[in-house]
């Protein structure tokens, strides 16, 4: 349980430096004519706070800011424009590390390692299949109605960063777990043509052949130093991941074992009631996270390990195939025969 010695950040943990992502968002909004007073309404912040490095924001404050921006700008491309500015960003050594990444694979690894700095509201994770590297995004703080904005920004940020760093064009595939929005043109122009909607995850698939292509001449010593100072930066920030992420990861790690609220609560040294309360604060609940973990495991086994239906069911310890079918239908909305055909 060494991982749990360091608790995860929660919705009301103030740790996001105001001059990181929030300042970028405010600048965009003001450049597009939003009134700064209305923009900061409900955030308990002043414009001066955004310049200082002393006032950290909680995810909740950042989300309020995002909600205000969405409302004030009322344009379909706000999230994409914000995203284009997000990465590598101006977040100290972590940003510098991204810029020094020697290949796409390394870039993704850094993104995931320094997620608390680079992407505090949404967590990138990845696994590899025959087709390529699947990078998928998951809500880390209970963004609720603002999740779509954050997701669009993050995907656009990654696409734009990849476009910027890579010496040749990488044609990625994009999957989204919602239906095609009516402002689809924004996706075409800011992300790419290769989109599919109504999928199981929000993911970018980078084709295998581009993954390890060398981008830059690596300067070994400065590179190592930068990565080390990025790790120090993360340590000083004090948070590696969110509380919800930790619960999800615990579930993923123990997915083959009989698992329930009591057991997870004990592992986190919380009473079941506090665990429930904390999850509720982040707009989720235990069963929802467990279903998500199982669904993602099933998809991973199918895509990456080429398991068939029976093997997946065995892996997830379903004795009864009918039970498994029903469960898959509940997690994904599709029958397993369609999904794992």
């Amino acid at each position, binding site marked *: 349980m060494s991982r749990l010695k360091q608790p995860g950040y929660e919705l009301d943990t103030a740790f996001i430096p105001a001059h990181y992502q929030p300042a970028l968002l405010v600048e965009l909004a003001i450049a597009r004519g939003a009134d700064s007073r209305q923009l900061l309404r409900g955030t308990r912040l002043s414009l001066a706070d955004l310049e200082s490095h002393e006032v950290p924001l909680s995810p909740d404050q950042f989300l309020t800011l995002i909600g205000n921006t969405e409302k004030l700008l009322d344009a379909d491309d706000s999230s994409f*424009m914000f995203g*284009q500015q997000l990465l590598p960003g101006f977040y100290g050594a972590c940003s510098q590390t991204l810029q020094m990444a020697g290949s796409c694979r390394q870039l993704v690894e850094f993104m995931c390692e320094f997620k608390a700095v680079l992407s505090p509201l949404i967590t990138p994770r990845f696994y590899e299949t025959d087709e390529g590297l699947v990078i998928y995004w998951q809500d880390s703080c209970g963004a609720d109605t603002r999740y779509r904005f954050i997701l669009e920004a993050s995907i656009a940020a990654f696409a734009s960063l990849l476009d*910027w760093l890579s*010496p040749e064009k990488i044609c990625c595939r994009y999957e989204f777990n919602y239906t095609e929005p009516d*402002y689809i*043109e*924004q996706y075409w*122009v800011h992300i790419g043509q290769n989109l599919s909607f109504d999928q199981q995850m929000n993911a970018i698939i980078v084709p295998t052949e581009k993954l390890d292509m060398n981008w830059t001449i690596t300067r070994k010593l400065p590179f190592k130093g930068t990565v080390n100072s990025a790790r120090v930066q993360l340590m000083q920030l004090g948070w590696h991941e969110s509380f919800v992420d930790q619960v999800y990861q615990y579930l993923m790690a123990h997915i083959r074992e009989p698992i329930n609220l009591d057991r997870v609560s004990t592992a986190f040294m919380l009473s079941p009631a506090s665990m429930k309360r904390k999850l509720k604060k982040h707009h989720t609940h235990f069963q929802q996270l467990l279903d998500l973990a199982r669904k993602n495991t099933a998809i991973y086994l199918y895509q990456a390990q080429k398991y068939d239906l029976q093997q997946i069911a065995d892996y997830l310890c379903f004795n009864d195939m009918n039970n498994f079918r029903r469960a898959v239908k509940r997690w994904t909305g599709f029958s397993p025969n369609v999904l794992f055909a």
Partner: protein
Amino acid sequence: MKKHVISHWSYLYGLLFASVGGFSVFHVWGELKPTADISWLDVLSEGGMTTLAIFWLYMVLRSRPAGRVTQLIALGLCCIIFSWSMDVVDEFIRLPSTLLWHSWLESLPIPLALIFLSVGIYHWHEEEIAISAQMAKRERHFREHRLFDKLIPVGGAGYLRKQLGLALKEASVSMIPVSVVAVDLNDFNLVNRRYGVKEGDDILQVVSQLLLINIRHDDLICRLAGDRFVILMNNTTESAAKLIAEDLKQAVSHLAYRTREENERVHLTATVAVTTAQKDDTDSLIQRLNTLIIRNKPDRSVLV
């Protein structure tokens, strides 16, 4: 001659002043009606009319730039509000019928108001014709302000879809070719990265103006999203559209835009794509145009 522009607040002050004046006339010469004599239905309807007229004035002043048309319409509305508000006061206070003021206060402003409004609306009509001439390449046949692009003074994707739908329907009946041209700036997100969103937005506005100048009178330009513009060309074959597209590409590369802060020259290049509708619907046509533009994109020019 220096044009005298009345500030928006002065209408409200003037109105307030006149109303106070009118009210004092009532106060000095009139006598309060007993409650039983007050017709509440009249109060309600006349009060409602006055409130509505104040709302009209507010809307006109909020939305219109100062100028002749605004001035005339606002003066007309001020007269109406004054007259109607005197009507309301009339319900509470009785003036002796011998007093000439009484009918003056209520009746005199109305013809004045009608004259102001008529002249104002006539000039408004002239103004609309002038604006429509300027808007000609940005809208065809119908105006829908809700579909205007938020940032750039041309229609957005929604407007394009509507117009394209109309054009395609028309084309299928009369068998005339409809072409669409897409113009997409190369590596525009690098411009945004380097100079910031504000400068990027300014560049897009300039580019939209530039494209507007370089298209024909009957063409329609819309911004699909970001830095991608689509021009709808009615009654144009693919080869004719290609010529214009090439001109647009040249125009963009010759644009000497300089940044606001540093006066730095920004070199822009564009990729164009042209396609002509063949048994297409709106979506398939836009889809094909997008695929073409990606295919036409040059290999990455290294921009540092």
